């Protein structure tokens, strides 16, 4: 079935249906955690946060907190009956600090009160006694102290030193890459409702309900089966609710257990930004050797990743940096090394791209440096280094089977966006414009699709058909705005040949589909779409068998379409068929299970095929900078992106545009600043600036590249969640190009994010 040919017969997939909740969104009728009608007697939880970044927790006086109006209970590490740990794997991240504090803003206790306002006010009355130590805050601090959260790790191939020594040209550089706050619009929230006999129902705004279930159970010292985690939708996730939602769910559940009443914890935005992890900031130290054409002979790179106070997902994140250190470029000899540094800052975590963006940005920087050294157009240098037949193996041993896709895609974009003519026009503009300078860049994206932790590449679905022909759809994927639910519903409607309105989309819950993977790694529709298709297909096959037996028709004559089933010269309404099947005692419920084929990864050897396939794209960005202030405008963007055969082109274009703009924010105005005490100074939207409507150029052209996935994915589509974020590398490179034009003496160091200050510093050398 995976290889089922697509064709004109398809009626529901490949169509630009609106988001299933679109009407509810615009009417204010879509419910998020804080909108769920609170059960009678619901209590509210607020956090007590560490006022120091590092030190021994010598004492904690909570008397004033307990005495405050409305306070019902106060919880500390001592009130955790099970394991005081929310870490996904490494047992290194407590629910509440115990003995020592690891970062400024670390939760130390929680207050449970009759109102949220009362809880928040009470939480500020604690007296901390912390024997403060000098915190380790930066990559340099951590390197100096030699503190890490995970062992160093490297892979590569060839004799890099020899290849560098033998190369015609050599360059080296250091690129600092900033982190990023997710800034999902709905902050972290959880509502825990205690049931009988120790049961706990947790409504959580999480991308990973199974992990919330598991860690709540672990903290409460009860079996997983006692805990149900449910999520209908999130108001944005972006990776920030993959592991980071767990702690709030656990605390709400602890409070519910302690009080016997429903308890809700919704973080205030400033707290949310202070206490949840972010994209890893990194320092990339790189060296490259290349020939006169700019073709790379060897690449040596060390990513010093600031992981924060615990491991969290840093193994996977930083591994993915390594997997994408090549981006789209063949590296004959490569050494890709990493350090996973421990700092007294919030533990960095998953964020759309999951480490990939940092690896790719460093590669793009190297391309620009090579081009500047040789005086060549950076696009020509990039193209000279693309994977190609015979130059098609990644440094980790996976062969790139579809090298033609990116080559064709970039050729098309280059022509469509008029790259060469604009390059000339920009040079002419810059020659006559002393203050304003323009820059242009066209950068590619090659992004590996699959969880690199191989066992996560599985998914389950549950489909019921009721007697009236309505269909209940459930699967392990979560909806965070990305349109997963409508895509999977389209798959199910296609399978049954029924209108999409017949398919009822339901909240994700661990009670229906167990042991799910996080909705992450862009894998949501690949995995859950396939699992749902299998579940629906099982029921469909039972209906087919029933038709064959009852009406004596051959399977090949049966067609499900237009809410009917056609066989021979007859037809039945779908609901009628279902009713008859029910009466004939046919089971109308099925589960589906899917696991991604072909993938394998040997981390010890640093070789394997971690990805089922690659998604491709390219973007061309044009910017103008003001050389007196460092301010800039994005003038035009052209994007051509490969989503295979799109399950839903409207949803996919939304992902591409949104991903690009989010990536643009990461590389331009979104700057995380920690002060000397380790306090996050940019802890609110007043100080942390994500893009607004006017930052997006009026001239923004986004096109889907017409191609089918070579691998047998769901209807030959490709994953789309993360890859477009890295299209924004073009903006950074275009700014860098404009800075080069302003200086007239080659490429100047420019770090990310390229804030106006960073741009001005690059132009003038030192401020």
């Amino acid at each position: 079935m995976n290889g089922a040919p697509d064709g004109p017969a398809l009626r529901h997939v490949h169509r630009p249906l609106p988001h299933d909740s679109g009407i509810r969104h615009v009417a204010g009728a879509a419910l998020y955690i804080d909108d769920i009608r609170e059960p009678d007697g619901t209590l509210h939880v607020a956090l007590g946060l560490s006022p120091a970044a590092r030190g021994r927790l010598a004492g904690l006086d909570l008397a004033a907190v307990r005495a405050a109006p409305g306070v019902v209970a106060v919880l500390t590490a001592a009130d955790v009956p099970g394991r005081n740990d929310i870490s996904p794997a490494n047992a290194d991240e407590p629910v509440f600090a115990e003995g020592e504090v690891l970062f400024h803003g670390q939760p130390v206790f929680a207050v449970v009160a009759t109102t949220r306002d009362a809880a928040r006010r009470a939480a500020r009355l604690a007296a901390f006694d912390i024997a403060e130590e000098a915190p380790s805050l930066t990559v340099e601090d951590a390197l100096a102290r030699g503190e890490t959260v995970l062992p160093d790790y490297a892979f590569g191939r060839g004799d890099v030193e020899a290849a560098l020594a033998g190369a015609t040209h050599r360059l080296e550089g250091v690129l600092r890459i900033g982190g990023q706050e997710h800034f999902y619009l709905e902050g972290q929230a959880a509502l825990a409702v205690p049931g009988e006999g120790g049961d706990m129902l947790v409504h959580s705004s999480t991308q990973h309900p199974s992990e919330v279930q598991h860690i709540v159970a672990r903290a409460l010292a009860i079996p997983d089966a006692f805990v149900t985690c449910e999520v209908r939708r999130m108001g944005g996730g972006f990776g920030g609710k993959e592991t980071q939602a767990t702690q709030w769910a656990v605390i709400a559940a602890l409070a519910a257990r302690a009080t016997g009443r429903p308890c809700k914890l919704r973080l205030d935005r400033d707290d949310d930004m202070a206490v949840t992890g972010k994209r890893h900031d990194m320092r990339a130290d790189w060296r490259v050797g290349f020939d006169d054409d700019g073709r790379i002979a060897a690449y040596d790179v060390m990513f010093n990743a600031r992981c924060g106070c615990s491991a969290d997902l840093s193994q996977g994140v930083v591994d993915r940096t390594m997997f994408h250190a090549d981006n789209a470029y063949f590296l004959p000899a490569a050494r890709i090394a990493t350090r996973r540094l421990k700092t007294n800052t919030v533990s960095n975590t998953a964020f759309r791209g999951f480490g990939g963006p940092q690896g790719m940005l460093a590669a793009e920087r190297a391309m620009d440096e090579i081009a500047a050294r040789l005086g060549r157009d950076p696009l020509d240098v990039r193209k000279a280094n693309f994977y190609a037949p015979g130059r098609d193996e990644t440094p980790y041993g996976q062969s790139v089977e579809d090298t033609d896709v990116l080559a064709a895609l970039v050729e098309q974009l280059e022509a469509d966006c008029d790259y060469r003519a604009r390059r000339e026009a920009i040079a002419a503009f810059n020659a006559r414009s002393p203050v304003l300078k323009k820059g242009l860049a066209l950068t590619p994206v090659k992004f590996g699709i699959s969880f690199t932790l191989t066992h996560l590449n599985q998914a389950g679905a549950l489909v019921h058909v009721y007697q009236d022909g309505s269909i209940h759809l459930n699967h392990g994927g979560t909806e965070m705005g990305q349109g997963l639910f409508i895509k999977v519903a389209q798959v199910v409607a296609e399978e049954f040949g029924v209108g999409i309105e017949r398919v009822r989309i339901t909240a994700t819950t661990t009670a229906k589909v167990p042991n799910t993977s996080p909705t992450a790694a862009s894998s949501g529709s690949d995995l859950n779409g396939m699992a749902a298709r299998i579940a629906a297909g099982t029921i469909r096959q039972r209906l087919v068998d029933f038709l064959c037996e009852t009406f004596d028709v051959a399977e090949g004559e049966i067609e499900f379409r237009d809410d009917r089933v056609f066989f021979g010269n007859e037809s039945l309404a779908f609901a009628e068929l279902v009713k008859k099947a029910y009466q004939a005692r046919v089971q109308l419920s099925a589960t589906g299970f899917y696991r991604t084929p072909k993938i394998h990864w040997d981390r010890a050897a640093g070789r394997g095929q971690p990805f089922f396939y690659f998604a491709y794209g390219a973007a061309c960005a044009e910017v103008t900078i003001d050389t007196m202030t460092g301010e800039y405008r994005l003038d035009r963007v052209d994007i051509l992106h490969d989503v295979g055969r799109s399950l839903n082109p409207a949803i996919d274009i939304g992902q591409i545009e949104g991903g690009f703009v989010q990536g643009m924010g990461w590389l331009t105005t979104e700057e995380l600043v920690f002060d000397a005490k380790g306090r996050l100074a940019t802890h609110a939207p007043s100080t942390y600036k994500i893009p607004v409507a006017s930052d997006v150029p009026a001239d923004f052209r986004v096109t889907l590249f017409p191609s089918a996935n070579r691998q047998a994915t769901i209807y030959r589509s490709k994953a789309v969640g993360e890859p477009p974020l890295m299209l924004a590398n073009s903006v950074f490179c275009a700014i860098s190009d404009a800075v080069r034009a302003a200086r007239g003496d080659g490429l100047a160091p420019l770090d990310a994010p390229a804030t106006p200050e960073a741009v001005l510093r690059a132009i003038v050398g030192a401020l």
Partner: protein
Amino acid sequence: MRRAIRFLRRNETVEARNFEPRTTLLDWLRLTERSTGTKEGCGEGDCGACTVVLRRLVDGRLVSNPVNACILLLGQVDGAEVLTVEDLAADGRLHPVQQAMVERHGSQCGFCTPGIVMSLLALYETGETPDRQGVTDALAGNLCRCTGYRPIVEAAFDALGRIEADPFAQRRLEVAEALAALRDEADVLVGDERSFFAAPASMEALARLYLDHPDATLVAGATDVGLWVTKALTDLPKIIWLGRVAGLDAVMEEEATLTLGATATLVRAREALGALDPDLDELMRRFGSQQVRASGTVGGNIANGSPIGDLAPALIALGATLHLRRGDASRRLPLEGFFLDYRKQDRQPGEFVTGVTVRKPAGRQVRAFKVTKRFDEDISAVMGAFCFDMADDGTVREARIAYGGMAGIPKRARAAEAVLTGAAIDDRAAAERAVAALDTDFAPLTDHRASAAYRRRVAGNLLMKALMEIATGDDAATRLIAHREVRHAAE
């Protein structure tokens, strides 16, 4: 004396007489009325997820303003109709703004969507069809993390193209009548001597009340005080809201001067100041967001004493006189004299700002530049305002230069002014000396917005840019956005 606030909600008058003075509109909506369509995204008026629309009668016209419900105090809706996202669809039919948002795929996660719908509703209700910048201005106070905004901007244009007789619009007359019926001239006081939300209706009543309660918190738009409530968790037992004081919002234009009343909103200030010079219009366009400008006031921005408030430097550069009143006594002083030190103003207990009078440029050359990380809805790293009175021979007769973000207060660059006075506008050496003199005038700080070195350098470059532009008469070559000629041509 009225002992309740009154507002219109879903065609009915709501009277609120028992509420804590600090109660926000958002909390009232979500916790008391239990309308959860309006979302809290940040609790500080920056993300716009909580945007609702207030409709008021202004000079007999029904005016719709978007506001951030999270930092608006409940008492501030007195006399208004409160419209939320749940109120738009009529008879199962979506409002054109909602319909366009669905059709254009303008929502993804949907959490910012109610606020965006309400911002677009306010724009729609103006009946105007702005250009793209007009649309992005209307959306500058609404953060969306999912879509990249393109579909939202397109939805705005679609909806604005469908201004027709929708059932929602037909109700406007009824609403206007209901609001007219709510009008009175009574002083309002909800609470008691110990804790109250008061809204005096006259200047005299305000002066008396504040003299009796100098410990009360004066609130105009609450765009800053709202955060004391939501973030600092400050208890504000006594609040005096200025929004009902008759005449305090007056904007008076005379031949040589413009007087802005303390409670004139930043929207009105933009209209009045923008007419004086295109740079002032652009400065005010980028001041906060539409929601903030609709609530925030001239007096609030000044009295608040923020070192980075954009209004004060611009007004100081023009030459401005501040009006204050305490009891029956009034006084006036040059605006720059009001700012004593970081967050410390020349204001006595019980004294309040009544307005500010600025000199019109009248031939003087004005330039104002706001430098931020993000263009829209961002607080200035550096804001420079320049006003040069030029002699016919091209020399500077009088230079007035003020900066925000360069000191603990909005401050004049007197040393730089002195260097330029008498110099030719295109005297490069004088310009460089003036830039150097800024080091005498200012010792800026490093913070999360910018480093001291950047601020120092940009302050000098802004001065240089102003001089270049005035000397050459060409600003297209020095600006990324909003050339003065383009804007003139458009007017």
